[in-house]
């Protein structure tokens, strides 16, 4: 209850500050006031224009994120579990992870064109390294005591791996996925600004060229809401399905 009130209060303060900056500090062209943004958004929503862009951006994030997570978890487990693989690949990963998805846009466009594949690739790229590093850390930090305890109860190497190591790493993996999801929502925008003919980023770019600040604001707000909603959904899903793996973190 208190949290809800504070959340509402925070929104009210932000709206007031927004209106104030628009009317008295800058001007309504540079910062369109809340009401104008709402008036701009309504027809865009009614015609379905905004939802088309949202759907396309979401599909790109979805494909890139899911494939990125899947690949990163598989490789991360290998890196965390097999010393030789780790020693061979870690130096490369430590170098490549500094190439943000934005840095990869120019080459991605040459490799894959401006269609969907290049967007999938860029989101995949951004997701992959974040989840990989967290998965590896989680697998490596699975307490040796816990593995040994299972071992002397008679667990096989496979049982220890599946029933002890992976669940021990789960909080790390999930945290990595959550960070990667936020980062995906950030990196889809530059990808669409530079090389796309649809999506929220394209809407931003197009509105900017036409100096439509009100439409830019609609797009920016849409990004905020999308990121927020999906982060919340992710947390709720984790709480529902994985809470027993997440809640003990304070213990170890």
């Amino acid at each position, binding site marked *: 209850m208190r949290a809800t009130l504070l959340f509402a209060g925070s929104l009210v303060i932000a709206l007031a500050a927004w209106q104030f900056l628009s009317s008295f500090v800058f001007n309504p062209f540079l910062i369109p006031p809340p009401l104008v943004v709402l008036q701009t958004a309504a027809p865009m929503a009614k015609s379905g224009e905004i939802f088309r862009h949202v759907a396309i951006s979401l599909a790109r994030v979805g494909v890139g994120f899911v494939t990125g997570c899947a690949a990163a978890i598989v490789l991360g487990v290998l890196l965390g579990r097999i010393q030789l693989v780790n020693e061979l690949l870690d130096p490369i990963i430590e170098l490549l992870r500094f190439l943000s998805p934005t840095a990869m846009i120019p080459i991605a466009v040459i490799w894959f064109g401006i269609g969907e594949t290049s967007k999938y690739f860029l989101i995949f790229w951004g997701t992959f390294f974040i989840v990989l590093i967290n998965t590896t850390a989680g697998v490596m930090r699975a*307490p040796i*005591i*816990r593995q*040994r*305890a*299972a*071992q*002397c*109860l*008679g*667990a*096989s190497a496979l*049982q220890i791996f599946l*029933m*002890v190591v992976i*669940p021990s790493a*789960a909080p790390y993996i999930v945290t990595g996925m959550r960070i990667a999801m936020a980062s995906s929502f950030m990196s889809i925008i530059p990808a669409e600004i530079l090389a796309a003919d649809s999506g929220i980023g394209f809407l931003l770019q197009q509105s900017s060229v036409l100096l439509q600040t009100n439409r830019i604001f609609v797009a920016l707000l849409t990004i905020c809401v999308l990121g927020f909603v999906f982060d919340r959904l992710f947390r709720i899903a984790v709480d529902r399905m994985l809470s*027993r*793996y997440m*809640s*003990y973190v*304070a*213990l*170890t």
Partner: protein
Amino acid sequence: MVGYDGEEGVALLAVRNVRKLFGDDTQHDVALDGIDLEVAQGEFVCLLGPSGCGKSTLLNILAGFEGATSGAVDFEGAPVRGAGKDRVMFFQDAGAALLPWLTVEENVRFALRVRKLPKAEWPAIIDKYLTMVDLAEHRHKFPAQLSGGMRQRLQIARALAVEPKVLLMDEPFGALDALTRRRMHAFLLDIWQRTRTTIVFVTHDIAEAVTLADRICVMSPGPGSRITEVMRVDLARPRDLADPRAGQLFKRVEALFA
């Protein structure tokens, strides 16, 4: 090699001239320098020594987690190769040793599952051991919801559920408060007397060793630790440290570390 015949007084666990070096050929530390130890079936042996004397290393070798650099470790007359459920290790950090995402009951079930017992037998065994450690009414709680002593009792139940021949305990109650520790001593002795499971118990607490052990093996400070003194404790249990004979023993052991 002498075969193990399971007779009373024949060593269940035999350690002969075990040395353990850490490091490589050119630069190494000698952790254990010639350990000899025999543990009989049903015996309660305490390994007593100061921190860093290699007690835990020796226990890890007995468990099969680590190999000795030289020397022999035989269990039931056969060399120890790797860990096995006949020698179950019991850790001080129960929070790390238990599976925190499983409930009390599920933690015991995990042991039965890896022991490959028929599922039909699980409920009865789970009930038996949870009742034995007095956790039956907490069966649906998670380890994080238990006190330190309760977690250790759960670890005991889980270990007993695989019916080990030896329980290897590495300063198991070192992280508990003094009152809980005393209760755990009484509790462990009760379990030991009921199940006659052989126990090798590592501690740096003289009072704990005097309270629990049939035999106290005193280890010299590391590096290059060895067993310098073996004392038999022929006092009836439960023991009272205020008893003059227990007090004398305590002083004799204490003098070794002076």
